[in-house]
């Protein structure tokens, strides 16, 4: 049995269902990210683990002990909040010692543990400061230290980085991960930022409308999206409509140009939607026996390390990502280009959604 388990969790607020049939096991020391758009129920699940919300039905266990009805302050669960939640009336060291004081630790123990925590977050010289004298990033590090000081069984992070600016967000995320590894603490991290989830987690739980869409490693989630929601939510995706021309040979037509797919086409009918990652398409490749279509360059977006080229087939658009190297000369608008991609890159989507075109992002 997993260290932290959520079994058949169902949560409704009045008539609104926030989470349904949620089942998940998290191993000791694992770092799991809950990823999904706002309102998908990820924070509600986190708050149920913390004890701030009660599941309508279902059970939560930690280390085989049922904690479903245990009050929040008896759970020994550390939590870091999105908003800076430090106690404004206490200094950094008082904030970190707060939980220890309540647990009845001796003065000496409190001091040594708080100092150890300050060392871990590299803020020893800030011990006497008040929260209002710290930057947002520093406050979140103190909040992390405060949550970890009580040696919690589980650490919960509720979008801890979303109030910070981009540079600090990246560095703090690496810091959180390294501290988590160092202490080996079981961690659940809630975020709506896919890059954050992909870069930090051992496993990602993608949620949508109160349901789990997919659970898997960042690689699996990105490369083998299980549903169209996951495919479109993670990374950038071209979703285009195609016509099946030869079901058994796997031939389909994209605006009149025939390509092959490795996916099965049986029983899907004449019209299908296919997904193609922009980075799996090569611009003017050497002929290699893979799929090749002709398209016209419509627009070029310079994104820094990547250049995104929007091309037009006949009616539909295909985004192509290519690395920006010093020698790279992007094609001109209106130029005809060859686009090459493997058979395996053409994913046939089973829950066909024609409303989603391949609009440029």
């Amino acid at each position, binding site marked *: 049995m997993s260290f932290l388990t959520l079994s058949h969790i169902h949560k409704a607020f009045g008539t609104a269902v926030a989470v349904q049939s949620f089942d998940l096991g998290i191993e000791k020391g694992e770092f799991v990210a809950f990823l999904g758009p706002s309102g998908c129920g990820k924070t509600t699940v986190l708050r149920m683990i*913390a004890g*701030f919300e009660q599941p309508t039905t279902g059970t939560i266990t930690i280390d085989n002990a049922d904690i479903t009805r245990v009050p929040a302050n*008896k759970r020994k669960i*550390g939590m870091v909040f999105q908003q800076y939640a430090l106690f404004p009336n206490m200094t950094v060291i008082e904030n970190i010692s*707060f*939980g220890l004081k309540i647990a009845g630790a001796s003065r000496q123990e409190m001091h040594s543990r708080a100092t150890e925590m300050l060392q871990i977050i590299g803020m020893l010289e800030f011990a006497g400061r008040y929260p*209002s004298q710290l*930057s947002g990033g520093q406050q979140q590090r103190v909040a992390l230290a*405060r*949550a970890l000081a009580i040696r919690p069984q589980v650490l919960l992070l509720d979008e801890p980085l979303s109030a910070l600016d981009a540079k600090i967000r990246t560095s703090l995320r690496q810091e959180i991960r390294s501290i988590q590894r160092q202490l080996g603490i079981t961690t659940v991290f809630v975020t709506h930022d896919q890059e954050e989830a992909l870069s930090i987690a051992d496993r990602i739980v993608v949620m949508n409308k109160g349901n789990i869409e997919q659970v898997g490693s960042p690689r699996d989630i990105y490369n083998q999206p299980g549903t169209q929601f996951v495919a479109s939510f993670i990374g950038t995706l071209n979703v285009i409509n195609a016509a099946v021309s030869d079901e058994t040979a796997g031939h389909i037509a994209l605006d009149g140009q025939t390509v092959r797919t490795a996916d099965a086409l049986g029983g899907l009918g004449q019209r299908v939607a296919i997904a193609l990652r922009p980075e799996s398409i090569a611009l003017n490749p050497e002929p290699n026996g893979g799929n090749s279509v002709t398209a016209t360059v419509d627009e070029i977006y310079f994104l820094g390390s990547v250049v995104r080229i929007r091309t037009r087939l006949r009616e539909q658009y295909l985004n192509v990502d290519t690395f920006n190297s010093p020698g790279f000369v992007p094609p001109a608008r209106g130029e005809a280009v060859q686009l090459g991609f493997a058979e395996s890159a053409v994913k046939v989507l089973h829950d066909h959604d024609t409303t989603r075109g391949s609009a440029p992002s």
Partner: protein
Amino acid sequence: MSRPKTAPLAWLLFGIAFVYLLLPLVAMLWASLTTPRGVTADAYVAVFSTPGFAEALLFSVRSGLITIVITTLLVVPTAYWVNLRMPRLRAVMEFFTLVPLVIPPILLTFGLIRFFNGTPLTNTGDGLYVLLIGGYVVISFPFFYRAIDAGLQAINLRVLTEAAQSLGAGWTTILFRVIFPNMLVAILNGSFITFAIVLGEFTISSLLSQPAFSPYMLDLSYREADQATALSIISFGFTWLIIVVISIVGSRRAGGARQIISR
């Protein structure tokens, strides 16, 4: 561009209001300073040595402090709970805060006396004192509650509560170690107003025949008009001092809030 046109009218209205408000004060000051022997500050010196002055002032100061403690213990947890768990009740609470402002103190006092008639609260001296404090708590409640409510709105109540809970804190710990310390400025604001109210309160203390400051002042005015006027001026200055202290503390808090926002 309309400024030069409206300015004279605005100044005129301001001047009228100013004179209207200031004239009685000037008259009082004049009356308290002039005696048949000429202009003298004798009344201001004499008032402090009048028998009963210290007792009356002390009585009201003590009652004010007791009222503040009781009101704080009643209002802060209530306002906290309403804001945290029952935000819908805020409208109801707002209505409750209007009641003491609408009901005249004389009605309140007679209501209290009638309701507790025949109980130790009206039969004994101590009982009447308890009734007095009860009355003070009721009339200062609207001002205190609004100060606390505003203070609670300014901090992130839910997150601070949950942070404390996740660190193992129970309700008492949360209230006394997290909420009260962070509400200090709001509590101080409410306390000053309460203090000023209690010090100037006349109706309840007079009807319950309690030896408070205001009835003492009235009594004094029958005997020593000059001294009573001097005392009015002094207590007026005292109230002003309290208001100045509130605004200084308040602006310091606003400064702190700005600092938090700009971060």
